[in-house]
């Protein structure tokens, strides 16, 4: 199986696996005062420091959660109270669902946010919470966060950044991005599933969604999942933008081969994640494409990997102005350990699929 669905989940990195297995050996509850508890607490706090250092936040600003969805929800439910919420049109459902009544910020044809529209929206009405993802999960498109942050700062708005896809693949940090809060997910950067983090600018205290027990300074109750957290921190050590940048060579080769064979690439001109391409094959439903590729031993997706079985038109591509083609796009996302010949293997499978399905469609 050629696994090219890293944006659904990255393969577990060796360092993350080692750290998680080591933490599994520890019996203690990090909140317990006895020796076993203190050992667990040290592992937890050293993971917190590693995460804080990497994202240029203070350890006290790191709230461990069960994952990216919960981290986004904590930020948006907690920081959105009493504010207008502005949400990018291509955000992940974890963000849009957290603020169902939010105003949508349009994006350009290349998937990047319309800065003029953001500026105009910020000018009117009450102070806002702006939610924009660092990198899109379907297209890999990166928003111009520096400019977004400057606009937000000038307008007194809070900026929450969903960095689930960006963390570990492109440089992203709390202070450097100008964001007020940043959500990350362990398993999207090669850590174990079951842990994520919300990083907060000093002074921001979102009300807890999950209460009780007083863990995470009262911001998130529940015994911390030590193996998943230790694995997140260790995985982060290996997930460097420098290493991820090398995937761009493979991605570009893969993309070029498919474009030559008739594919369109969503978000092509925009800055993108190095590992992601969103390939449109006009006239062929995405579901048909992924089934054909699955049979050929290639794992890709038709969008976000969430509740199973639902393959609909991509809201991301629709927001970018694609019409019927938004039902004909697949996401190819290279994992950190993609084989050297991934581009050739994929191009062969894709071209065979195109030849067969386009003939059938015609």
């Amino acid at each position, binding site marked *: 199986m050629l696994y090219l*669905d890293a944006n659904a989940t990255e393969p577990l990195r060796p360092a993350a696996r080692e750290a998680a297995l080591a933490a599994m050996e520890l019996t203690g509850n990090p909140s317990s005062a006895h020796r076993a508890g203190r050992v667990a607490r040290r592992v937890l706090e050293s993971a917190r420091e590693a995460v804080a250092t990497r994202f240029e936040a203070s350890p006290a600003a790191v709230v461990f959660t069960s994952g990216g969805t919960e981290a986004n929800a904590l930020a948006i439910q907690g920081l959105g109270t009493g504010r207008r919420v502005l949400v990018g049109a291509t955000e992940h459902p974890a963000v849009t669902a957290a603020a169902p009544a939010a105003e949508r910020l349009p994006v350009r044809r290349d998937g990047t946010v319309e800065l003029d529209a953001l500026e105009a929206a910020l000018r009117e009405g009450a102070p806002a919470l702006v939610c924009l993802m660092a990198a899109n999960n379907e297209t890999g498109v990166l928003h111009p966060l520096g400019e977004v942050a400057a606009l937000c700062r000038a307008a007194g708005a809070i900026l929450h950044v969903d960095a689930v896809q960006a963390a570990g693949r492109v440089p992203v940090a709390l202070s450097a991005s100008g964001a007020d809060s940043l959500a990350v997910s362990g398993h999207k950067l090669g850590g174990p599933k*079951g842990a994520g983090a919300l990083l907060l600018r000093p002074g921001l205290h979102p009300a807890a969604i999950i209460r009780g027990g007083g*863990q995470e300074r009262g911001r998130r109750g529940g015994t911390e999942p030590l193996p998943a957290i230790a694995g997140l921190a260790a995985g982060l050590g290996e997930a460097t933008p420098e290493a991820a940048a090398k995937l761009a060579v493979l991605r570009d080769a893969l993309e070029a081969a498919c474009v030559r064979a008739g594919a369109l690439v969503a978000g092509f001109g925009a800055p993108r994640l190095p590992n992601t391409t969103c390939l449109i094959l006009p006239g062929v439903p995405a579901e048909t494409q992924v089934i054909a590729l699955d049979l050929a031993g*290639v794992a890709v997706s038709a969008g976000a990997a*969430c*509740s199973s079985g639902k393959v609909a038109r991509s809201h991301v591509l629709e927001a970018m102005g694609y019409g019927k083609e938004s039902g004909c796009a697949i996401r190819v996302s290279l994992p950190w350990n993609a084989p050297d010949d991934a581009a050739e293997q994929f191009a062969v499978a894709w071209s065979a699929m195109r030849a067969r399905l386009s003939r059938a469609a015609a």
Partner: protein
Amino acid sequence: MSRSNRPIYLDNHATTPLDPRVLTAMRPWWEENFANPGSAEHAMGRAAEAAVEEARSHVAELIGAQPNEIILTSGATESNNLAIKGAARFAAAGGTERRRVITLATEHKCVLESVRDLAAEGFEPVMLPVRPDGLLDLDQFNAALTVAPTLLVSVMAVNNEIGVIQDLAAIGELAKRHGAIFHTDAAQAAGRVPIDVEDIRADLLSLSSHKLYGPKGVGALYVRRRPRVRLAPLFSGGGQERGLRSGTLPTPLIVGFGEACRVAVIENLLDSGRIAGQRDRFLTALQAEVPGLEINASREHRVAGNLSIIFPGGVTAQAVMEGAPQVCVSTGSACSSAEIEPSHVLRALGLPEGRARATLRVGIGRFTSPAEVDLAAAALGAAWRRAVASLDSARADTATAAERG
């Protein structure tokens, strides 16, 4: 580390060691197939989904439920929050007249805080006291249900500090007779005492993996299908778990949780018999070391591994613990380990502050050996004697100083 210095873990209410069989079951999902179980588009994702579903059926079996009644969460704290706030918010959105939410003063903090939080949303939280033995007075409960229409009752199956087993069949019966939704936090009960959602008529039941020798970071909420109990999610997103709990399902943790439940189904009785034996051995040994030792709460209605011990002689349990640092025990729930105040559970039993401060919680588990309980009893006994001696010498110093003064 020398043998006598090796930590002896007697805090199985805070968390339990991972069962080696659980780790074995988990490893392939870390080492071979890492796929997202939501990735139905490819074979790897579908295999992960199948593993999740198998684990879900093991969880269901442990409590006599159907697999489609199990919502996987990050743990019992989240399950309790989801059950209590979720049921109340859904009912409120539907325009319910019922405003009462009844719970016990001895519940876990996450239940108490969830119930208290509902006051701000227009509900009426009621925290019922318990009897000195830790059990709910059923007449008092019935009276509380009769005062005003009750939306939700939340009563834990087994207390995390004093190990008391509530009469859930009777409580569920009364709750249902009054038309309330019945939730129970079974985090400490599952795998330790038999529990069946039909017998106790539970509508909602919370489970934690790491309290039954599974991994941390996963738990479940049982949500009854017939008649269907409706909840508002705490947060939304990808729509996993039928929209009640969004977020990528952590396959390895879920597989581990499922295996822990499967083992618990098989070994439940074996475990509790062996654990009760270790508890008796420990208590006999400790009583020989510490004359006048007392036990809090009901002895009869109590989970096998639990002891809540009052040390005599005016010492604090903290001092005894500090004198036996190799013995991992606690003064109360792990969550409040850093707190100075005596536990709210012991206060609810009506224990005076001095006795509450002299109370130590012991939780014996599946992997506690006879040698460990012997060593622990000896170490705690010696620590108690030192604590009493240092107290006596401090008193003598004070008396001498007073005489001189």
